[in-house]
């Protein structure tokens, strides 16, 4: 498990800017993230963060910091580097705090957190923002290259032709590995429109997608159906 996620997708090491005032948590998490294959720059306060953010691939911010709080620092970073994904990591779990954080941040994790969960969320954010996606993702017998938008059969080396929507669905599922996504979430992310009640579009597209990528579309293994809830993929 250790370092697996980082190694799976990184060509060079992704640079993480981590701002945390608690030395115990800061030193431990920095070490853990480094072990996961990231390059980590840990700052005990928001001072100097803006300069380092320009080179960072992702920022992890604590909320309660000495001087400027995490919300203010996060907003400044987002303003300066709009393409920088920000993950808030805070002991403040009130809905208001989460809403305030998610106003500019891309994810919000409350303490105490599970290190694997944090690692997975960092990975997902990096993928979503197209950072470190230059390595192929393995999904069963498939090899998916998100940046090149190609899907190949790893066994035969043949490229599998997918329609843009099928590819978008597959990439969206891969960006959320292990997570079950509902048809509403898939539709709104891929089509960019509000889901209409009773719409079968997602179901139909997934059926066609399976016909293209599954060895046995009648018994799908790559894109799982969780009955009544949604779909998920579990990349290897």
């Amino acid at each position, binding site marked *: 498990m250790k370092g697996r996620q980082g190694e799976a997708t990184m060509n060079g090491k992704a640079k993480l800017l981590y701002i945390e005032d608690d030395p115990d948590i800061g030193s431990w998490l920095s070490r853990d993230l480094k072990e996961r294959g990231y390059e980590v720059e840990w700052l005990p306060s928001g001072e100097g963060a803006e300069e380092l953010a320009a080179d960072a691939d992702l920022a992890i911010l604590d909320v309660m910091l000495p001087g400027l709080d995490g919300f203010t620092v996060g907003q400044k970073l987002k303003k300066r580097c709009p393409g920088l994904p920000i993950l808030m990591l805070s002991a403040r779990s009130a809905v208001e705090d989460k809403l305030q954080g998610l106003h500019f941040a891309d994810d919000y994790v409350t303490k*105490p957190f599970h290190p694997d969960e944090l690692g997975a969320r960092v990975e997902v954010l990096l993928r979503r923002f197209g950072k470190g996606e230059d390595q192929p993702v393995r999904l069963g017998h498939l090899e998916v290259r998100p940046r090149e938008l190609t899907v190949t059969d790893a066994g035969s080396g043949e490229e599998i032709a997918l329609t843009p929507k099928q590819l978008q669905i597959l990439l969206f599922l891969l960006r959320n590995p292990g997570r079950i996504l509902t048809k509403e979430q898939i539709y709104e992310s891929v089509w960019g429109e509000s889901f209409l009640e009773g719409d079968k579009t997602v179901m139909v597209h997934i059926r066609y997608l399976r016909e293209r990528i599954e060895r046995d579309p009648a018994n799908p293994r790559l894109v799982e159906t969780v009955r009544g809830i949604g779909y998920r993929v579990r990349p290897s």
Partner: protein
Amino acid sequence: MKKLIQKLKRPSLIARYSLIVLSALVMLPLLITLVGLVTMTSLSWLHPPASPSIYSNTTKLRLAWEAEAAAMGGESKEQAAVRLKAWIQKYPRSKVFRVDGEGSLHDAIPARKDFPAQWSAAYTVEYMKEAVNGVRYTVVSFVGDNRSEGFIVVEVPRYLTLPYSQRLDGVGSTVYAIGVMIMLTLYLFVSFLFFIRIRRRLVRLQAAMELPSESGLPLPVSLSGSDEIGRLEQSFNGMIRELEQSRRREEAEEALRRDLVMRLAHDLRTPLTVIRAHAFTLGREALSAQGKESLQLMTGKLDYTSELMENLFSYNLLVAGKYPYRPQRTDVTRLLRTQLAAWYPVLEQAEIELDSDLPEESIWWQADPQWLERVVDNLLQNVLRHAASGCYVAVRLLTENGGTLVVEDRGPGMDAESTFKGTGLGLAIVDLMLVEQDLCKQVRSGPDGTIITIWPDPERAKSNCQSTDELSTDF
């Protein structure tokens, strides 16, 4: 002394009212008397009693008329007419006429339409009867010495024959009555103004009380005087100031409390995070079976403690009414599907089968989505913690009754002995959130499992919504 002067300058309401009553009791009779005196004096000045009227001496008037009648004897018609005209010039407010021996009417000055041109004996008698004590003083005299030349008549308004004192009585009474009426009206007007002004100031104060500002408290009013109402306005402003200060104090205390809770949460979660991190590191080391078991127990307790803290803070906020509540039209089907998608891996890991039965169509409730998510989270957390032995949980959304949510497990039931008995905070939060959102809950729990049913029922009173039926067997 100064105080007295100040009081006189700014009289109180009671002083003003006393003044009005005093004026009614003392001043009014005095003023009415004054009106009488002024009236009489004015009339006396206009008609001084020292200059008597030419009509007031009736004897003299009668004798003069009789002399005229005697002198008229044997004169021609023209001479008689001249004589009567001369009389009118002397007594302009009198009326005269002549009836000749044949009963014909002549020389009526001024002309009389109410008289016949020919006087019969009967009419003459009737005229004379009416003249006695009539409104006019009347003298009838035969012309000349014999009774064959007819007669002449003079009429003078009777009030002209009265003395001045008697004649002015009527006029004086009327003027006096008008004067009294004016005085009374003036008094009523002053009283009316007094009460109208009081009313206007009270209404203004009432309006100020009923018109809250943005802060929810009424605004202070400008003082309209230093009397009782002025002091009332002063007290009202003082009360507003007190309330405003109290509100600010309350806000400051609330901010302090929230800050304290926030810091407390932070200070508790930070060491938990460190423990969790190190437990994770420890888990990557080679441990004995007992060590692994201890670590697993430690991690489980860590999860439980952080969850308990979360519930404690939420419960605290809910009870204080400070938990943000934003109700809106919410698609429960979609919300549940998303929640179950998030919970599925957790339940899967705990080897709990999730049987979800959600309709294709949307079901809308008026609720806060964050609160509903919390309700579902707490119910599933409860299943995970207390009913995992049943290895089964069903989440159904039925379309009946505007949408009915059913969460069913096959755990040992709520009354079962459990090492993970817990505080019941999670369910207490569920209850509080459901009541606030006008959602009803029914719990049926027995040794074979628990079924929790939730449905919206805005018609029913909130207090009647909760009901817990304990079933011992069979479901």
